[in-house]
């Protein structure tokens, strides 16, 4: 039996929404952040540049406040059930900052690859490293014969390309067209996604 790893994008996949626009709401920049996020998902702005800019805009938010906001975001229940029944082989792969998502990740209960923050106490100082999703897949290759990747935006493209089974997910918004072209499967809700995952 092959060992199979499941790599899930976080925003718009496990979370039924986007973290950064929700954080931006607390400092009255929701629309601006949503625009930047949408352009990034579509691949109009490279993820790393966009992420550094967006984090800069959000850096005034205390880390504890950001964690509280992130922890209240709705999760896709079918995917959470799947992850929790395959905890040892499920991985969240996200560009988001480790300090913002820490309590959420602990609650979900699986390993997470994320960007890393420089911080001091409750204050965000900047970005230490930006997650390159293909690196997560490469590191899992050492432990797994087969990798299944699930995502919805262009920042998931390299992760899907490096996987053996690529799934474009449209549960929160339609997956971007160029990502669909890289996918073996396309699904539009968590139940459909779990049908595919259950047969891997």
């Amino acid at each position: 039996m092959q060992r199979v790893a499941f790599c899930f994008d976080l925003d718009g996949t496990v979370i039924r929404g986007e973290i950064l626009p929700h954080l931006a709401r607390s400092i009255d920049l929701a629309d601006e952040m949503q625009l930047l996020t949408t352009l990034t998902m579509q691949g109009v702005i490279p993820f790393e540049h966009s992420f550094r800019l967006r984090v800069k805009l959000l850096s005034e938010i205390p880390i504890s406040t950001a964690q509280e906001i992130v922890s209240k975001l709705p999760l896709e229940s079918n995917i959470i059930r799947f992850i929790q029944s395959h905890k040892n082989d499920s991985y969240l792969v996200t560009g988001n900052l480790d300090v913002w998502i820490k309590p959420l990740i602990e609650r979900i209960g699986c390993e997470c690859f994320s960007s890393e923050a420089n911080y001091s106490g409750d204050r965000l100082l900047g970005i230490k490293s930006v997650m390159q999703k293909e690196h997560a897949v490469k590191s899992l290759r050492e432990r797994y014969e087969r990798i299944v990747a699930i995502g919805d935006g262009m920042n998931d493209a390299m992760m899907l390309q490096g996987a053996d089974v690529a799934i474009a997910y449209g549960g929160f918004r339609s997956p971007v067209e160029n990502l669909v072209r890289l996918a073996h499967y396309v699904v539009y809700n968590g139940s459909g996604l779990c049908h595919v995952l259950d047969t891997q």
Partner: protein
Amino acid sequence: MSRVRYAIVSCAGLGSRLGLNSAKCLVHVEGKRIIDYLLPLVADIEDLRVVVGFQEAEVMEHVSKIRPDAVFVRNPSYASTSNSYSVNLATHDLHEPFMIIDGDMIIEPASFRRFLLAAECGESMVGVARSKTDEAVFVKLDESGYVQQFHRSPRAPFEWCGVAYLAGIRIERSSKFVFDDLSRYLPLKSHELECVEIDTPDDLKMAQREVHKYNFSYA
């Protein structure tokens, strides 16, 4: 929920013989798209996989509105591959029996329901229909209703109709036609379906006539 767990609907092809520049499953027949006649029939089947290729975005948008949990299996090589290739893409990771259905068919609901019930016994089963044209793939049946052979000629009373329930049968990527693969497993139980397959403009006209005879009220 049906005891048949997986249904594969093949909707990837170009439909070039119909010549409508539309994925065949989206072609209108008497006010409804072909796939709209099929989806209610498989509503109780837990895991629906639709193979998409030609006009995949349009097919996915339409089907996902009706069946949000459908799994779309992409066949980007649809223009140069056969239906067997599509079926293999959708079934190679399944380890349980599954049903295959061509996405260019309209099936009379009561006959499909009987097929599903018969499939629940777990034995592989080939859907056959009363022959309608000379261009079909015909089936030679024995006295017990088992398919002994698939053949192009001579014409026979029943034809292979593109629906099957397959237990322990693999459809290979390299096969030209699905019935080529099925031929390796003969004899196979048959079950009659009332249906029309829409490959040509003449088939479409026939479907427009036949569909009025079908009772869709409880599908």
